């Protein structure tokens, strides 16, 4: 694996700048360059869950498939890998807000323009929020879980969460409201659908094909030579393209 100590050093720079792995150094007389040194992201492989529990996976599979339903334009959020993406993001540094400022005191009545002021990390928000959704569904739908609801009822409930018309039990401002939970899941679902497939979502670049985004080609001088002409080349990801690996595009 190319995960050299310097990669760890870089990713750890801000947060644990004082751990022994993050070594200060002196550079003089040359550019400190070593061959074959680069810092690719770790490739997400589907299979197993790093953070989510089985009942949370079932709920999220159902949610992401309503946020991005399967139709002629694309597969569903679930089939695009959005739940896998969310699981791996929650298991990484973002899931515990490692890079954010998380020192107290946490204000009881922050202003909306002051941004995130909750002490809860995404891991805690998902765990608490999905449990509250589960309790709500059990009470409101005769013991059913979210994924057991009809698609129409799922949409109605999601709409109510988005608009703050339903209050899931135990969710309160400023830590986590029902709308905050909805917005977090929506944001992460869209990230998964449109991020590079290396992170576990956007399987087969379905999100990019939806809008004809060509991905990581990095050289579009051909487009600038023909402004306004529809672009027809298929997308490329950090991992390349399926047909480069002997699979159909």
């Amino acid at each position: 694996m190319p995960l050299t100590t310097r990669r760890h050093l870089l990713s750890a720079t801000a947060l644990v700048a004082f751990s022994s792995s993050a070594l200060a150094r002196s550079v003089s007389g040359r550019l400190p360059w070593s061959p074959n040194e680069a810092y690719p992201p770790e490739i997400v492989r589907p299979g197993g869950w790093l953070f989510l529990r089985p009942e949370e996976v079932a709920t999220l599979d159902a949610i992401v498939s309503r946020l991005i339903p399967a139709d002629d334009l694309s597969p569903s959020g679930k089939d695009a890998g959005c739940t896998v993406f969310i699981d791996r993001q929650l298991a990484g540094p973002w899931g515990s807000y490692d890079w954010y400022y998380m020192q107290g005191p946490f204000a009881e009545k922050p202003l909306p323009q002051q941004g995130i002021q909750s002490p809860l990390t995404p891991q805690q928000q998902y765990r608490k929020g999905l449990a509250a959704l589960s309790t709500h569904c059990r009470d409101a739908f005769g013991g059913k879980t979210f994924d057991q609801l009809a698609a129409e009822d799922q949409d109605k409930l999601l709409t109510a969460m988005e608009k703050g018309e339903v209050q899931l039990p135990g969710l309160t401002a400023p830590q986590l409201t029902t709308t905050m939970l909805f917005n977090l899941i929506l944001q992460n679902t869209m990230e998964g659908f449109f991020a590079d497939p290396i992170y576990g979502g956007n399987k087969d670049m379905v999100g990019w094909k939806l809008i004809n985004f060509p991905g990581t080609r990095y050289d579009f001088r051909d487009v600038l030579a023909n402004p306004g002409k529809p672009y027809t080349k298929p997308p490329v990801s950090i991992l390349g393209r399926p047909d480069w690996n002997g699979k159909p595009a």
Partner: protein
Amino acid sequence: MSRLPKKDVVIVGLGWTGSIMAHELAMAGLDVVAIERGPWRDTATDYNIGTAPDELRYAVRQDIFLRPAQDTQTARNSLDQVALPIRKYGSYLPGNGVGGAGVHWNGHTWRFFPSDFNLRSHYIERYGKDIIPENCTVQDWPVSYDELEPHYDFFEKVCGISGKAGNIKGVIQPGGNPFEGWRSDEYPTKPLKPNLSQTMFAKAATELGMHPFPLPSGNISEAYTNPYGVRMAPCTYCGFCEWFGCANYSKASPQACVLPALMRQSNFEARTLCEVTKINTTPDGKMATGVTYVDADGREWEQPAELVLLCAYAIFNVRLLMLSNIGTQYDPVSNTGTLGRNYAYQTNAGSVGYFSKDVNFNPFAGAGSLGMMADDFNGDNFDHTGLGFIGGANINCTTTNGRPISNRPVPPGTPRWGAEWKKATADTYGHVQSVGTQGSSMAYRDVYLDLDPTYKDRLGRPLMRMTFDFKENDLKMSRYVVDQTAKIARAMGANHVSVNYKKGPWSVVPYQTTHNTGGAVMSSTPQDGVVNRYTQHWDVPNLFVSGACLFPQNAGYNPTGTVGALTYWALDAIKNKYLKNPGQALVQA
């Protein structure tokens, strides 16, 4: 604490200004050390072409930016609010590591107008003193455009800026910006190629009587060798520019333009992952003796030096002065002190045009500075009589990217999810073009920087507190220019135009711009600012300050061109005046 051998020069921060200062002073034979709190970064390893185009990692999770866990600010809109920490950077994104924000900028490289440098007296002379709003603390710069012109020119040559001159030695040039200050020379490289939207904008703006011209770009159009002998390559319009490092050596940055030459000099040393905690002074506070820093293992070091250059990002320069007790903290109530005074930002807004499906903008084929501009409503290029505001904004039509996590527009009123959202997304992507404005931000008595009374960084030092809001003068200016953008978008043939005026209160959440200015402004007298016209501290003559913190107020332009020009202006004074008589004030207070 361990005391290190004395150096001629210690530089705090190794971004644009730090690397330029280091290179020029090392070439002049001085023994120079730069202390940088982030990691070493270089193109081949950190912005490798195989991994650089990663929207999630860089633009969304903010991998290369300063992390708030290391340092952040608290924010409030007014004196009666309680400031709270910016827990996730949003409105602006400070850089981190070698290269600083010069790594991830868009590359818009402007010169301010000559009248920006004598802003207050210019407006009063033309319109009378009543045009200056109440509690607006704008002031003239202590340096003129004519004095800075050669330094603008050299910075543009170091960067290889692509553009078309509009005024060479007073002669207006076709195709350039007729409103710009005189230039001694053409741009180093020709303009970038326009995409469809730039061509449509140029036609529409011309029909409306405006004067379109290509955006002066730090993403360069052709192969180029700069005055330091460093070679750059042509931009490939990859669409991963702002918030990313450039893998092509095409975007002007310390890495692409300065470091390869700087690092050859054996009398220069960079120390990375070392954070300066204090500028040390003599007991009487009249001379700097060096800096104290902590390394990544938490060990504390003292680095003595003859000359201290403060070259971190604007707000961090201001904070380090505060933490070092150098200068007098500004107090908006008593209206005393200068440090933290005249903080300003930028007033950006615009219109969005939605076009037919047969209009293919191909937004993914873009560059940070690929754009057409019009300056007809910037600065004082238009008559302000009766308008009720000072200042202006540039008008821009740029194609920077089509990265889909953040940039997939849908018509107003479209649901945010579900089948209807998906269809609208597929139908709209690639057929939308914004016409934006980048507006000036004036200085006001109750907009300022100081140290927060409650929140601390990981070393236990107070965070900086930012008290800022958009004021009516700037909002009125912005509305006026945004109305012009809507006219252009309609003239370009948009089926629908959304007009998005700037509104308060200022929020830390959505990205607006990393153009934080002021707080350690340069001034004609010690009563009006922190440093003199040569960027030398009024109280401590062997301390010089760089960056946009020097601006008395912000213009309708990105700051980097002016930051670069000020750096070479200061270097000229350091090399040719200060070093001949070290330790002396260059301007008598």
